[in-house]
């Protein structure tokens, strides 16, 4: 069996790919290259920071005219819109003015009094149109989607891998997840180096903690008009990494998270700064 473990700085974090397969060395390298290439492709589409990305073009033009978008973008925007609908707007990818004001995103756009929200994102026949001026950020969804995309491209290229784990800074997906464990970091900055070991409950999981890494993980609660202030972390186990990634935010922001988790076949775990583990339940 050949094992290969690589780690590259992508998606604003460190992306780790572990592969084991009964193949020649050059083949396992080619598989890892394929996965990193797919992650780079998604990054090039969905980066807020890159003025050349598809997302940046949408942010510049979609309030002026319908913008043709990739299948990947359409899928991600459809899911974001569905989750906004289900959470009555608690989850909203249009919180860019708040994130720019707080330093969570670079101030690429003029500060604007944005009146639009997720309801103004109109999707139709491979195009997106904003019915009011709007800027969107995919920071809480694209990483999970990129992990899924890379995972699925490898699953097609080599269906009988002995092991496959893709971990994008804590948003992770595994091929053989039954009986596996995962180590969740303490959400307390003072004990950041400590881990809580829990069983893997689904193929994918992700963790968010608003207080964890300074501005990088701000969660905006637009309805309350403030930043999420909880010192806890939320981990979500889900069938896909995109679902896990987005639902961590929905659990923080929506007051009935258990119903949302159940709808997507997901489950949630809250870790408090004191080290308590609590299932997210109704």
């Amino acid at each position, binding site marked *: 069996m050949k094992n290969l*473990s690589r780690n*590259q700085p*992508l998606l604003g*974090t460190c992306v780790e790919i572990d592969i084991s397969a009964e193949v020649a060395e050059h083949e396992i390298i080619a598989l890892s290259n394929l996965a990193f290439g797919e992650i780079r492709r998604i990054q090039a589409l969905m980066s807020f920071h890159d003025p050349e990305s598809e997302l940046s073009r949408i942010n510049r033009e979609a309030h002026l005219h319908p913008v043709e978008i990739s299948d990947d973008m359409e899928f991600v925007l459809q899911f974001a819109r569905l989750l906004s609908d289900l959470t009555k707007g608690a989850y909203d990818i249009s919180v860019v003015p708040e994130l720019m004001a707080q330093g969570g995103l670079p101030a690429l756009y003029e500060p604007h009094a944005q009146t639009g929200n997720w309801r103004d994102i109109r999707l139709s026949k491979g195009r997106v149109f904003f019915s009011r001026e709007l800027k969107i950020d995919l920071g809480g969804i694209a990483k999970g989607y990129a992990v899924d995309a890379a995972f699925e491209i490898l699953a097609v290229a080599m269906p009988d891998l002995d092991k496959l784990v893709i971990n*994008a800074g*804590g948003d992770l997906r595994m091929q053989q997840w039954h009986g596996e464990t995962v180590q969740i970091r303490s959400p307390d900055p003072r004990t*950041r*180096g400590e881990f809580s070991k829990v069983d893997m409950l689904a193929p994918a999981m992700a963790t968010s903690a*608003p207080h964890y890494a300074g501005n990088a993980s701000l969660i905006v609660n637009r309805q309350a008009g403030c930043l999420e202030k909880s010192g806890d*972390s939320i981990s979500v186990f889900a069938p896909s990494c995109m679902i896990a990634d987005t639902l961590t935010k929905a659990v923080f922001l929506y007051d009935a998270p258990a119903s949302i988790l159940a709808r997507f076949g997901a489950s949630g775990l809250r870790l408090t700064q004191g080290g308590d583990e609590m299932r997210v339940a109704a």
Partner: protein
Amino acid sequence: MNYKSENSGINRRFLLRGGAGLLFAGLLFRPKVVWAKEYLTPDQARKLIWGDKAFAAHPVTLTKPQMKSIKKASKTRVRNKKLNAFKSAENDWFLLDQVVGKHEFIDIGVGIDGLGKVKGIEILEYRETYGYEIANPKWRAQFTGRDSSEHLKLDKQVKNISGATLSCRHITDAINRLTHTWDQVLKPL
């Protein structure tokens, strides 16, 4: 050329510096490696970036004005005047570098081609180090049967880590510093 020994040279220097700090800080401040994971040897990283192309060691020592100028251009501190560099006949470079964050120490290998374009970045080893005593009994209890002060190796005991996203800003800064180093120092070599 023995790449491994070059690399462990970096680590030793780093550990020696950390050791000196330890003596001064005394017993209240005990840095420890919380976890570490080795991904690739320098040799493996070079092959992933450059294939079988032949490289020879080409160590470079930066002068003080060069360090100052690179710092100004990249807006990033230049910690080490010695560049652990390898060069091909076609003027391609492979650079070994260490990225130092608040808690993380990351060894990276970077390929830069003859036009100054980054050809590839591989993380060779990732370590996280913390300098506090773990005060919270509940977090301690999760390390059942294990002394929290012992050095943990990720591959055996701490794997599949999740937590809110770690930033790779320090790596991005290091790549920026290295491309400016190429532009100002390596390009004419």
